[in-house]
């Protein structure tokens, strides 16, 4: 039995042929490719998920400057606001936003995180999954399987487009992360493999063209809040996919498009801090301080 897949279409065919979820196919693929047992591969992902949760929990109670001192105090504010129960978003979304800020702030103060798919976009997938786990009291095993689902989506994007801001802008980082999260959420809430890919396609479409323009080249502004934006996008896309809404452009074509758009972005908008928010008055004042 061969569980290799390259495209989203391959992945769907494997799911329907074996009657397995995307997460299960991804787990089998990894075990096969790495020559490890299914348990070993599962345990590696479980370990990653535990680190993700620790980073979220640490981030919401810590109010400490980031390396560049641009962020570090927003997660706690957001979490306190969520706890007041007055947020306009549902409780789950509000909490996921707080977790996203928490994880990215941890990252920016040299805390321990899990790149997903990158360190710059590490606050989307874990925030959504952790908030959902708690909100719906979902078994941790199912969440770990959803992480396999998310990773499979990321793998396809990395193969046919890019997950690097320097290559494709932020659409390749937070865009990819939100596609991964959307697909994982659809699987967790009982959507079909096909619906997962619809969710991923919708999420990625919504982020097409997003530039990478970090102030002073730091992974702080706008990265942290953009991760939180990715959370909203992922949940919006998953919600549509679970309602049975399809993407007009299929997932595989959206992925290739994202890669193509990335190549068209000028280098000033691909992580070089030469354009976008990085050259605003506020950014220049910061860069020229001392």
């Amino acid at each position, binding site marked *: 039995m061969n569980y290799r897949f390259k495209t989203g279409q391959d992945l769907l065919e494997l799911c329907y042929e074996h009657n397995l979820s995307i997460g299960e196919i991804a787990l089998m693929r990894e075990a096969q490719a790495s020559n490890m047992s299914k348990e070993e591969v599962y345990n590696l992902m479980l370990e990653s998920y535990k680190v993700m949760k620790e980073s979220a929990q640490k981030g919401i109670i810590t109010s400490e400057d980031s390396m560049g001192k641009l962020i570090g105090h927003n997660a706690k504010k957001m979490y306190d606001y969520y706890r007041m129960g007055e947020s306009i978003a549902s409780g789950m979304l509000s909490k996921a936003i707080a977790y996203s800020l928490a994880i990215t702030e941890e990252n920016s103060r*040299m805390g321990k995180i899990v790149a997903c798919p990158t360190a710059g976009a590490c606050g989307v997938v874990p925030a959504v999954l952790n908030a959902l786990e708690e909100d719906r009291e979902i078994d941790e095993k199912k969440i770990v399987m959803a992480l396999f689902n998310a990773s499979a989506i990321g793998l396809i994007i990395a193969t046919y487009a890019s997950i690097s801001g320097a290559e494709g802008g932020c659409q390749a980082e937070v865009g990819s992360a939100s596609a991964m999260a959307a697909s994982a959420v659809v699987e967790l809430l009982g959507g079909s493999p096909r619906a997962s890919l619809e969710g991923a396609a919708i999420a990625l479409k919504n982020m097409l063209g997003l530039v990478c323009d970090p102030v002073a080249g730091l*992974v702080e502004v706008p990265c942290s809040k953009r991760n939180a934006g990715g959370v909203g996008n992922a949940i919006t896309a998953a919600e549509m996919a679970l309602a049975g809404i399809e993407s007009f452009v299929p997932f595989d074509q959206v992925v290739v498009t994202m890669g193509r758009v990335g190549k068209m972005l000028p280098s000033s908008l691909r992580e070089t801090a030469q354009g976008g928010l990085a050259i605003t008055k506020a950014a220049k004042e910061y860069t020229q301080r001392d």
Partner: protein
Amino acid sequence: MSNNLSLFDITGPIMIGPSSSHTAGACRLGYAARRILGEDVSSVIFHLYGSFKETLKGHGTDRALLGGILGFLPDDIRIRDSFQIADESGVMYAFIKEDEEEDHPNTVKIELIGKTGEKKIVKGQSVGGGNIRITQIDKTNLKIDGKYCTLVTRHWDRVGIVQEVTGILNKCNVNIAQMSLYREAVNDQAYMIIEADDPISKECLEAVQNVAKMQYAAVIDKLY
């Protein structure tokens, strides 16, 4: 990206932030250099090229490189305090920003002196997602990516030496995944890079070190 990606290249690595290339990759480069030296470091000079010059402070590239030299892996929280730990253990360090252009924007050349006086120059690149490539040891250009347990030797080029080394690995029950040979000229200084599926034990390494005309051998653990 390559076709041999693992799902853990997507979800992963577990790392100290903030940047996979500028923090996690930098740490791995330092760690690999320390392993190539084969002993504890007494002093180190980092020559930084391209983006590494810019990300030194804001991405903690300096602390990550030094942390790697101290034997920390990218998920080791001690990276945050690597200056202090280096000072306490008497490791001297310096960072020099170089103006020359290199093939890859994230390049570092690491000059190491060990506790017994052994010297090594190791050059490498952080190629994205925390992945690295060692491109030079002393004067020899080569390629090590740390995806396998890797045996590096420096020896005098002579008939039969490759067979002796692979024979030792065979006895130690180590399967070779890939191997490459580099040399400066016939009967001159040469290198062997052997990537193995299995871990290479201390005893096995010692046996390789005792082969005739062997000058130096070191094992770099699987870095991922």
